């Protein structure tokens, strides 16, 4: 642990504000909460003689890493960081760790399945496959995202402004329309676009405590992205978790000298469009009554809600911004059999909010938030980049 994190422990006044913001605490009374599991337990861990360590560690896999505790702390302590770091010490039973390993490598499965989407989608809905997954500890009730492949159209002309697009797993293997929309937006904003020749950002690997492997992913991504930064490219992502990981997590968890150079140049697509003051032709707004769920990992970036700014300006007449609730899926968490019910229970406040009014459009940036909201409400959820890109003339 960096000295900075050790020092920050002393800033925890035990006011428990973080505790009141934890979505897990609210729905799972036995969960110790961010203050206790984070800074309090960390102090004990540092003494090296914490008698209840195993007892506490069993709860680490319940931390959603939504970072609402980090944002809430008035004194700059980040409880989630201790939780993520300490996840490596969870001693899982063999089957659970196999299941976690499988879920953490959604990137691989996406690459394979994306090559033959028809066959993969058929199998993912097959009851025998579902039973097999259930035996492995994957929630059989969970709807898997369909796989889709699409050849992306990218303009070939050379421009001064250059952007490299880090697609992430979801926009690559499941919803390439998002990727195409982001490319369209970037080109409209005057960028020469290139797709980063990279796979996973490492979020699912980190959240399953596989830190050694995550470090390797981080090193590879940083090395490649650094070359782009040196050539004057901006790194753009449309997935809030990828963006947060590239911006902050590499630097937080792995001692890689070049990570700062990369993190300073990573942009959320809407953050960049807003920063560049890009004007869109959305004079006749198509939608009214639209709700936008702010993903936790977007909220944690401390950039406000740039998508909401632009959507409000060019696409919709009235937009309800919901940043109050975590959707509960937390990446791979909601796919786990023993955690599925809890995941839906946490999401329920958001589902109720969305079901309360007949919204014509439900928006969110995050692929897994989308899956969860669709599962919990039956409503189709769309990435804001898709609706903004539609305002541009073909």
């Amino acid at each position: 642990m960096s000295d900075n994190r050790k020092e920050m422990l002393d800033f925890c006044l035990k006011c428990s504000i973080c505790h009141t913001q934890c979505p897990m605490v609210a729905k799972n009374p036995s969960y110790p909460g961010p203050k206790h599991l984070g800074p309090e337990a960390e102090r004990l861990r540092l003494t090296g003689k914490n008698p209840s360590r195993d007892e506490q560690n069993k709860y680490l896999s319940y931390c959603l890493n939504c970072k609402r505790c980090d944002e809430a702390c008035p004194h700059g302590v980040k409880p989630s960081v201790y939780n993520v770091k300490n996840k490596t010490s969870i001693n899982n039973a063999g089957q659970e760790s196999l299941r976690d390993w499988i879920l953490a490598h959604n990137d691989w499965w996406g690459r394979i399945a994306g090559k033959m989407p028809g066959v993969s989608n058929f199998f993912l809905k097959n009851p025998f496959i579902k039973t097999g997954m259930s035996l492995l500890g994957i929630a059989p009730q969970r709807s898997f995202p369909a796989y889709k492949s699409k050849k992306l159209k990218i303009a070939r002309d050379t421009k001064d402004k250059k952007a490299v697009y880090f697609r992430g797993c979801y926009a690559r293997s499941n919803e390439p329309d998002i990727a195409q929309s982001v490319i369209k937006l970037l080109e409209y904003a005057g960028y020469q676009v290139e797709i980063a020749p990279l796979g996973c950002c490492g979020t699912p690997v980190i959240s399953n405590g596989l830190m050694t492997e995550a470090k390797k992913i981080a090193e590879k991504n940083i090395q490649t992205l650094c070359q782009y930064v040196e050539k004057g490219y901006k790194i753009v992502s449309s997935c809030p978790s990828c963006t947060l990981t590239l911006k902050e997590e590499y630097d937080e968890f792995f001692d890689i000298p070049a990570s700062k150079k990369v993190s300073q140049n990573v942009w959320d697509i809407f953050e960049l469009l807003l920063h560049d003051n890009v004007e869109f032709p959305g004079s006749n707004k198509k939608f009214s009554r639209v709700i936008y769920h702010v993903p936790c990992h977007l909220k944690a970036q401390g950039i406000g809600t740039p998508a909401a700014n632009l959507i409000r300006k060019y696409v919709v007449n009235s937009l309800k911004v919901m940043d109050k609730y975590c959707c509960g899926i937390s990446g791979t968490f909601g796919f786990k059999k023993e955690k599925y019910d809890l995941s839906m229970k946490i999401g329920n406040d958001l589902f109720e909010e969305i079901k309360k009014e007949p919204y014509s459009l439900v928006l969110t940036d995050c692929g897994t938030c989308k899956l969860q909201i669709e599962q919990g409400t039956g409503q189709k959820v769309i990435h804001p980049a898709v609706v903004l890109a539609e305002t541009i003339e073909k």
Partner: protein
Amino acid sequence: MVMYDVIVIGSGLSGLISASVSSKAGKSVLVISKGLGNIYSSSGFIDILGYYPPERKLPRKNIKEGMKELCAFGSQHPYKIIGQEAVDEACDFFINLTEIIGYPYSGNSEENKLLPTAAGALAPTALVPPTATCNIADFEKILVVGFEEYIDFYPSYVAENLKCEFKKHNLNADVESKTVKLGLDTTRELNSYDIAVQMENSQIFNRVVDVLKGKVGKNTLVAMPAVLGVTKWQQVYYGLKEELNCEILEIPTLPPSITGMRLAEGIKDYLSSLEVEFHMGYQAKGITGDGTCQGITVESAGGKIKTYKAESYVLATGGILGGGINSTQRTFEEMVFGIPVAAPDGNWSVNDFFAPGGQPYAYSGIKVNEKLNPLDEKGNVLLANVYCAGKNLAGYDPFVEKSGNGVALTTGYQAGVAAVKGCDRK
């Protein structure tokens, strides 16, 4: 870059009030704050002026008389700077705001009410949440109820102290206590928030009803720690009142304070509905030039710096506890603009922790003019489009006066009004 009319720095009570005033006036507002404000640790009750002069033994009944004395003597007190009229307006604004958010406060800026604290003292307060509207002098019997699983509230201790307090204030009532077992899993320590969440569960709620039903009458006041529901407080509080057929009083607890939390989240939801934006989790720094604030920079994830601009800026970052002012043993530092902070002339502290006159350091803070613009040592305006509110202001000791939330509310209101005027002048 997005331009705002008003940027509020800080999301405690004063910041949220400034944001409400600005937003209600039709201004676009951004709230920047390092974390959630101290409102989650405060009672959420609005104490305007409980004791003045601070050395006073008994609380002031009439707030306005205290205010008159304060304006005659307290040279730098924020109330004196903004004036009685602004205090009254701010209270009206607040009563109206809490009505809109569905957590309606009652009370006024004239008269103090006496309500029990979690230590059983009778404390003066002015504006109270809907779960504390009763008048304790109206009851023949008071039953203090605590919960076995909630270790931050001791009903018998509260009751014994209340008896002494009643004598001191010439009040009459039969005070008793009772502990109810909720049947919760206590493998870990439960705090007020945990209990409040559990109270929304009908099974747990019914346990409380079963124990108390028929044992309390119409003339009994049931006083409980303020854990009667978080978002579903209406269901829990009014449900319990109906089931037990008696008056119920919520006593604010040790942090996290559910009464403060309900207020904060109610206002924030309201602000979100008015399209107010929030930027949370990072420290803000001001850019200054030509005697004005030219923008605010905030760090974001990965260390990238964001710059935001507005016509007017409200500085509501709190004092030493809130993080608006950093103190070492010899110096004070205002964290956003580096505005000079007036330190006490003599000793910063006195040995008696509970000294009746308070601690000298508490009076330290930013000196301001009547528009709440920050001033330099010579009394010149430092930043003409910045308005200060809340505990970063100099000249008062909220702890001994019992004026913390009152100053936060009224100066937050006044800073909001000034910020709106500042936009309109341009």
